């Protein structure tokens, strides 16, 4: 399949800029081109190109040994990827939906996270596990999960999440180049919901650096992955009222870019954190706690956490109420400003 056909498969017009799906596709293509040890594994990733078409055309180009349609079994998928990585390959595993990662948690939590430190062998497991995450696309039950807490709670992974088409490709290339095991959380709403002009595409991304995506001196919203565009929209709206709200995109969920977080928190003194996950034991509450502990003397208000309701993911009709929306986020920003 030609790249243009592949682009059409992904729903992109060649002249319409780059969406996140295309950016990730192109990054995977580059990774396979540049490293013979790289291989893509997952359910339906070959002929179909994955259910989100991120791998469209790659099997035709690189062969079914490098773009491997796996049996429908996630523990076996991640477990065999561990064996392949131990024995010289660099697997890029695609999990079909966030809700399907759970059968692989034994392999991820007991082995992938622990092996390099247990055996004092850094770089032992150079593998990437890509997981489409987040909601607000009216997908079915268990198709809109936010599983990041499991991975940041378990020491041993790098966890990153791109927040737009501009950064997705570079971040994925960095993840594949890393000798660490990387959990790569792809906000599925942005596959086709984030499109940028080619000139806006970032060439290089570090795996451990946050990005200040909006400047502002009055307050800061600290977001990541699927909530960054929400924070940007809230910031843009408040700017029209003359209120400067900075937005920090964490990019790296583990390790945290502590310097970037504490600098912007101390400078603005007013902090809101936002996540699509529920608040209980969430990364957003962890960041709020970090800010409260490290920047207490500079804070002018208590940090506020904006998160989803503490309940399992609802049916699609109720997802707008379940997730943080611009109204709730804006209300939280006004509260830290008051």
């Amino acid at each position, binding site marked *: 399949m030609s790249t243009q056909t592949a682009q059409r498969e992904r729903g992109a017009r060649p002249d319409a800029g780059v969406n996140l799906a295309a950016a990730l596709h192109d990054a995977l293509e580059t990774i396979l081109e540049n490293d013979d040890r790289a291989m893509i594994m997952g359910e339906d990733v070959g002929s179909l190109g994955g259910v989100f078409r991120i791998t469209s055309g790659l099997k035709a180009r690189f062969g079914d040994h490098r773009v491997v349609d796996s049996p429908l079994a996630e523990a076996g998928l991640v477990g*065999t990827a561990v064996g*392949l990585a131990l*024995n010289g390959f660099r697997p890029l595993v695609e999990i079909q939906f966030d809700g399907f990662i759970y059968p692989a948690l034994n392999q991820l939590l007991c*082995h992938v996270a622990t092996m390099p430190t247990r055996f004092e062998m850094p770089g032992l497991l150079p593998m990437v596990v890509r997981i489409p995450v987040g909601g607000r696309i009216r997908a079915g039950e268990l198709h809109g999960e936010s599983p990041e807490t499991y991975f940041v709670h378990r020491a041993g992974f790098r966890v990153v999440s791109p927040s737009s088409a501009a950064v997705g490709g570079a971040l994925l290339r960095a993840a594949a180049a890393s000798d660490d095991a990387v959990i790569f959380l792809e906000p599925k709403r942005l596959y086709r919901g984030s499109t940028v002009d080619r000139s806006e595409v970032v060439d290089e991304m570090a795996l451990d650096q946050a990005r200040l995506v909006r400047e502002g001196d009055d307050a800061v919203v600290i977001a990541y992955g699927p909530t960054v565009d929400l924070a940007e929209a809230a910031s843009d709206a408040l700017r029209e009222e003359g209120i400067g709200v900075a937005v920090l995109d964490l990019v790296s969920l583990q390790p945290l870019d502590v310097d970037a977080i504490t600098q912007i928190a101390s400078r603005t003194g007013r902090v809101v954190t936002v996540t699509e996950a529920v608040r209980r034991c969430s990364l957003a509450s962890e960041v709020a706690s970090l800010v409260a502990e490290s920047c207490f003397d500079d804070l002018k208000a208590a940090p506020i956490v904006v998160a989803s309701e503490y309940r399992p993911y609802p049916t699609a009709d109720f997802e707008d109420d379940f997730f943080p929306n611009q109204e709730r986020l804006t209300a939280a920003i006004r509260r830290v400003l008051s």
Partner: protein
Amino acid sequence: MNEIEELTRAVLRARRFDVVGMALQRQGNVDTYGQAYGQEVGQIGAAFDLEPDDMVFPSYRQPGVGLLRGVTPLELLTYYSGSNFAPWDWKAKGYGPYTIPVGSQTAHATGWAWASRLRGESNVTMVFFGDGAASQGEVHEAMNYAGVFKAPVVFVCENNGWAISMPSARQTAAEGVFKRAEAYGFPGVRVQGNDIWAVREASQAAVARARAGEGPSLIEIMTYRIGAHTTSDDPTLYRSKDEVKEQKAQDAMQTFLADATENHGLEQSVLEKLETEVEDEFDTVVETFVATREARR
């Protein structure tokens, strides 16, 4: 050393390691130990004919196989004494790290073997797991993946009758584990663990098949865990003393040694020499190990 002497030495070292591991735990020099008592002959039979560049993924109850692969007794003991999770160079020795979530190492073995096949290498991978682990979904997935991708891996299920307190009848209503292979599209055989020649024959066939690119095999070794699950276990709570007594009387090592001297040309004097050598070796091991432990305290 001829083959029967090598086999004998491997079995004797496996048993001696087990005795020493148990004793050191009871003295407080090892934290927890899981005995292989009764299973050593089958384990040696399975792994004896592997090449140095083959790979073995153990569970945590195959010390004799580790010794056979060139891991030192001191390295193995260190695992049980709280200072290191993988004290041996497992890639170089071809004896993988111990795996605690039972059965999950079978997927690593499939992946490792798959990688060898992708590179066109002729080495094979052997993975050990128990009848309890065979109930895990990951073992099913690992065997299924191995079948689909023709991974050169030999699955060795040691059916030792007990998964901690549960007899194998509580793990499956079927006749053991070996028949599952048919459902994955590869051969499965059952062999008696006290018959080292039968185990070797099955292993050699499975290894040859894997080397020839024909894919995986499953071997179920029927054996018996004479010891406890670990030093924290109390088997008197769930199985009869008579059962254990009967199994001890048929101890695979004694069966093997009798067979070796009667039918395979092992001179009694050579056996005694090997026994003395192994005992001396482990006396030194224990001395060094205890001294190292003392120094760390």
